[in-house]
């Protein structure tokens, strides 16, 4: 610490400089001029990253607060609408993120050991996990938007343009699968044909009967009984929710907060892919080794917090009883 005032060397980090005045700076070319030891630099970077993660926690935290407030106001909406989400896809995505977190952590390990090839493999695997997550997420979104499960007033607009052809398609594919016709006013009987991927049969009758009172139910009032008995798989129908008399008011709010939170999380996954891409580039160049692997460690922390947020999002949206 006696060299506090020395060093006219450049402000760069990873570039060696002929101006290094202290033995520490001469020994470690990545050491910035205002740090005295690599340990000090590493600790600073790590604390800085943790503080940044704290801001991320609060950033998401506010949305979790909005979630809690909405859920406490409309508990019936959340237990109803949750069944429109695909637990299998959500579960697979959880597993994908956990595995990619593992590969990231292994990447940090290999960077610490200075094993470049293993590090690169881990980073590529993490990248693949992120991409896989986004692909699955894309299919989920696409499916919901097709089924008109969106936020805002659009939730209540029957998609007249698409409804006909989609149903024709479904009927053509599996006409026999259609259950007994329901007394629904708008559309013909729904068929239980999945449109994408391999859907398991989600618990069919999990939709709770109307918590809605009798007032204003009109023609649909009778359906509250049928709501329990028929085997409708709501998320496979365009606008199935509009025919469902059991749907509580404000169901669109579930999807508002669902898109807000998963959308923000998805954005963080994209940012994660960008920074992991930069890491791959730098690792390829050979920047990292046992003495200097700070960026790998920091990106790892970021990636784990993305995983961590999803660990909470998954049960809070997909797994409501």
């Amino acid at each position, binding site marked *: *610490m*006696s060299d*506090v*005032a*020395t*060093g*006219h060397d*450049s*402000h*760069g980090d990873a*570039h060696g*400089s002929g101006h290094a005045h202290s033995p520490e700076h001469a020994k470690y070319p990545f050491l*910035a*001029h*205002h*740090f005295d030891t690599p340990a*000090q630099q590493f*600790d*600073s970077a790590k*604390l*800085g990253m943790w*503080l*940044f993660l*704290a*801001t*991320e926690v*609060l*950033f*998401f*935290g*506010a*949305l979790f*607060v*909005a979630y809690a*407030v*909405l859920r406490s*106001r*409309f508990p019936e909406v959340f237990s109803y609408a949750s069944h429109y989400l695909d637990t299998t896809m959500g579960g697979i995505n959880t597993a994908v993120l956990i595995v990619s977190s593992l590969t990231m952590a292994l990447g940090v390990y290999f960077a610490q050991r200075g094993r470049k090839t293993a590090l690169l493999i881990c980073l590529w695997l993490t990248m693949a996990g992120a991409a896989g997550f986004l692909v699955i997420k894309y299919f989920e979104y696409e499916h919901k938007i097709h089924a008109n499960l969106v*936020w*805002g*007033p659009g939730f209540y607009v029957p998609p007249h343009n698409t409804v006909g052809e989609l149903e024709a398609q479904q009927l053509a594919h599996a006409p026999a699968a259609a259950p007994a016709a329901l007394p629904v006013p708008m559309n013909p009987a729904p068929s239980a044909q999945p449109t994408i991927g391999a859907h398991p049969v989600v618990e069919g009758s999990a939709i709770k009967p109307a918590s809605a009172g009798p007032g204003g139910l009109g023609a649909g009032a009778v359906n509250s009984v049928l709501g329990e008995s028929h085997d409708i798989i709501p998320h496979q129908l365009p606008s199935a929710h509009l025919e469902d008399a059991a749907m509580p*008011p*404000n169901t*669109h*709010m579930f999807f*508002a*907060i669902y*898109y*807000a939170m998963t959308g*923000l999380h998805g954005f963080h996954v994209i940012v994660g892919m960008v920074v992991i891409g930069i890491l791959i580039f730098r690792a390829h160049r050979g920047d990292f080794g046992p003495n200097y692997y700070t960026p790998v460690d920091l990106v790892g922390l970021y990636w784990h917090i993305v995983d961590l947020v999803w660990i909470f999002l998954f049960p809070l949206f997909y797994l409501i009883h």
Partner: protein
Amino acid sequence: MTTIDTPRQDVLDSAAETDNYLTYTRGFLSWILTLDHKRIGVMYMGSVLLSFLVGGTFALLLRTELLTPGRTICSAETYNQFFTLHGAIMVFLVIIPSIPAALGNFVLPIMLGAKDVAFPRLNLFSYFLWLGGAAFTLYSLAAGGFDTGWTFYTPYSTTTTTGGVIPVLIGVFILGFSSIFTGLNFIVTVHKLRPPGMTWFKMPLFLWALYATAIIQVLATPVLAITLCLLIVERVLNIGIFNPSMGGDPVLYQHFFWFYSHPAVYIMIVPAMGIISEIIAVHSHRQIFGYRYIAYSSIAIAMFSFIVWGHHMFTSGQSGLMNTIFSLISFSVAIPSAVKTFNWTMTLYKGTISLTAPMMYALSFLFLFTIGGLTGIHLATLNTDVHLHDTYFVVAHFHYVMMGSALIGMIGGLHHWWPKMTGRMYNEKMACTACIIIFVGFNITFFTQFMLGSQGMPRRYYDYLPEFQVYHVISTIGSYIMAAGFFTSAICFIQSLMSGPKAPSNPWGGVSLEWQCASPPPHDNFKTPPHVGNCYDFSVVHWDEATKNYIIDHKAELAHVTGEGRR
């Protein structure tokens, strides 16, 4: 970037005198791409003062419009945009970055004895973010302005047809990140870059204040960021989380907004309190009274600031239970604030007070902050607030705190460190005159607003009853006086830059580390390792008539600190 900061060889070889941070490298790019915390601080200061001029102009336009009931100079719609712009610019572009980002950036590493902040690139990046945020805010004017008030309350902000709402939301979002990165940098710097001997309780109180501020910046600002994001999504995509006609909750918006914006009030005031601690100790040449209590009270204010936000929502439909809880907790903020005020007063008592310009500003601060703080207690009281809420009483209260305290503290600090920043002295008489004019003008402007508010004049109104006119006229005249004071101050600073006498390294007799390096400081702050002693022990300094400078007697100082020693 590295090449730009590479020193010229002649500078390295030449005498130490020419090697200061201002002359270290030259050219526009060497400033705009610098990683030197001092230059970034100076650039922040220039930008902030420029924004202050803009925000102040809007204030004068507002006051002029309010000279008469009905139309005076502009339409009601324009008036709405004026007060919104005045508020948004003053809060987000001026006061929040003024002390931490401008003065703090310059002073913090030097006071600490570090060569720079922990992340110099991030520091420069946060300045660029500030510029980006300011650009968006200005662009919102071209895009049609915005009339939401600086609080952007829903559902008005999501339904108003003025076109500048989304640009200003993006602008404030970016400014928030600028603030977060500054705070993050400061926390890491204080934790990791303290030189040997600089223990937590040897840090000057300004550093404690900046540390407390940084905690708030890091913990509160993200909530504002996500709230603004949701507002943008609400306007663009109609997501409905804050929209009551979609089943959303506008009170939730206010919870979010004030979860940030109440702590933000302390982002403004706590660093000003730190400056006052420095000024009062140095300019009365007396050991600060109750060092630890002032330090702890800064942290206490930072913590309390997070649990009192609901007192902004007493009349917003917040539930009675929460109103009571928040009212109760709000009173407790008075305790740490009073601890500070008490300790400052005790430091002044029997001190050898030099009535310099910084000291004048510090005394103004004490007076104005006491009024601002005590009226805060009226507003924290639930039943009084129901009467006073959204009246000029509130306007006067927060101007006493945000302007009369935070901004006056900032200007006091600017005078205090001006010789260090520029290497030149300013005209003391002129600066003191400016201070008196500002003080008088300020009280004329805002004290009348307490009377207006208690008689029921609502804030943000374009028109008013004729019986209020006399107060409005007095208040407007006061604002002109205040403007004259600020212009005097500006002239004083410009004159100092042009032809001010050279500043010695220690013009006031301070002991903290920044007074131990040259004025202006060299590029790396310290030529030799700084000696860390008790930064408030003024017995070790004595006036040297020959150099017109205070000399710190390190031998005497060493004798004082042997008890604590180095690690």
